[in-house]
């Protein structure tokens, strides 16, 4: 039988599996060649979400800003007097909140990406990790929208209070990409874990709303990393977002460089999340189609 002239032999073998990894080389190659699918899916989901409401993009910026102000009021009211001047605390709270939301959005949206992926998962074979990845990309883009808000508040604050300690430009800001990448990787890795759990236990999502809330209170967002005393300091290390939020505060708000332990902490949690999440997700993903 003649084979058509464009035929490229591409042999694929499908065999039973136990909870183990598929050959990683081909998986990652396939993942890489289809990465555009994840970015485009993120772009189109954005488009679908904001197609109806012209105010959509405005809310993207307004929402975190308003939340930031609400939390600021709360923190101001319950604050036991003294401490850092107001603008520093506001800056810390805003950028901490934005960074935390970046990770949280990766996790909560990514956790649902498989169970909501319905038809796509039942009818197309592709590396499933592309779906949470696309959520992470979307979360990153939303994070980018909040940066101008932060800068706007910062400049406004500096004009109003010229004596503030909040720094202007410093070269230490070059640490920012490192922090953002670590945050994204940590969020994506955790999203892989929760996305898998959500396939097996459909109430994971409900649980996640509580987890993220507690998680935020245990993270240096509403309080300063420096306010921890004694063995409470461990909160900065056992929390996957502890090191990156600590780093965020140091670099964005104080304008100082990162110390070695914080750098190691950031890298550790990014790698640990990706490796654990990747292993759990990829070893189970061939099960997804029969379970959703």
């Amino acid at each position, binding site marked *: *039988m*003649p*084979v*058509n002239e*464009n*035929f*490229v*032999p*591409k*042999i*694929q*073998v*499908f*065999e*039973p*599996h136990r909870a183990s990894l598929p050959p990683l080389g081909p998986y990652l190659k396939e993942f890489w*060649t*289809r990465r*555009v*699918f994840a970015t*485009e*899916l993120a772009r*189109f*989901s954005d*488009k*679908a979400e904001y*197609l109806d409401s012209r105010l959509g993009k405005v809310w993207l910026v307004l929402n975190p800003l308003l939340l930031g102000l609400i939390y600021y009021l709360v923190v101001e009211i319950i604050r036991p007097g003294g401490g850092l001047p107001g603008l520093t605390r506001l800056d810390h709270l805003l950028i901490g909140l934005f960074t935390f939301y970046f990770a949280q959005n990766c996790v909560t949206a990514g956790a649902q990406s498989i169970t909501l*992926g*319905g*038809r*796509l*998962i*039942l*009818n*197309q*074979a*592709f590396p499933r990790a592309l779906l949470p990845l696309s959520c992470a990309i979307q979360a990153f883009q939303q994070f980018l929208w909040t940066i101008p808000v932060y800068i706007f508040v910062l400049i406004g604050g500096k004009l109003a209070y010229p004596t503030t300690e909040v720094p202007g430009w410093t070269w230490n800001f070059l640490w920012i990409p490192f922090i953002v990448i670590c945050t994204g990787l940590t969020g994506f890795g955790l999203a892989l874990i929760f996305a898998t*759990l959500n396939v*097996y*236990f*459909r*109430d*994971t999502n409900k*649980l996640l709303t509580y987890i993220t809330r507690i998680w935020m209170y245990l993270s240096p967002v509403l309080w300063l990393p420096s306010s921890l005393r004694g063995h409470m300091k461990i909160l900065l290390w056992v929390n996957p977002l502890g090191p990156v939020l600590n780093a965020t505060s140091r670099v964005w708000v104080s304008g100082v460089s990162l110390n070695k332990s914080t750098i190691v902490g950031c890298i550790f949690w990014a790698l640990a999340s990706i490796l654990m999440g990747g292993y759990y997700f990829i070893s189970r993903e*061939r099960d997804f*189609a*029969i379970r959703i």
Partner: protein
Amino acid sequence: MPEDLAIRIEDLSISYKVSLEAKRTLKNAVMRASLKQKERTRTIEAVKHLTLDVPHGSVLGIVGSNGAGKSTLMRCVAGILSPTEGRVTVNGKISTLLALGVGFNPALSGRDNIILGGLASGLNMDEISNKTDEIAEFAALPDGFIDLPVRTYSSGMYGRLSFAVAVSMTPDILLLDEALSAGDAAFKEKSFERMRQLCAEARTIVIVSHALATVTDLCDSAIWMHKGQMLSKGKPEAIVDEYLKFLNVGSLPSSYEDM
């Protein structure tokens, strides 16, 4: 695997494990664990010990009643489900058009969905932008619908678009599950034409259809599946005859009773 084969299925079994719990939740799992109960499950054997070779350039039809395991088999060949036992080997680029259509996002326009569908099945951006117009033209939706949200489409228009996307991938192996049911007569003729052209280019097609005329018209061999097993295999006319007899009589011919 011999070079002239597109698909080789060896002693394939696929079963679903279905939980009998109302909902599979963490709460229930914890409750069960605390009561030392086991989750109640049932195993459904959707495909049982099926062996089949499909050579390049052939068109295979699959017939069988509801729940026979046809869609399950197709998903396995597409690599979406993995076998419980046995092995499936596939040689060539696969494009699928399965029962539910592509993962179209109803809020987006037809054009956007073409791009997403293409990317999901592994095309790159250049290939897709070259093809979008061709796909839109083939689907021949009524004026301007291609730029309207997919949720405004009729099911036939939806089917047309899905089919146009699936055939445009120039697959080596095309898997169609109930793909032509929604299109009108004109579109059916056009899609037959397109499939014949694909066969002439020595591409392989597997068709699942309840429209038996489709099977006799297009296929050069067919199989009949019943409760997960392949009962017989042969010329489409013969298989369709047998299947029709079974449908009319309502019981299996005596020669199959021991299976």
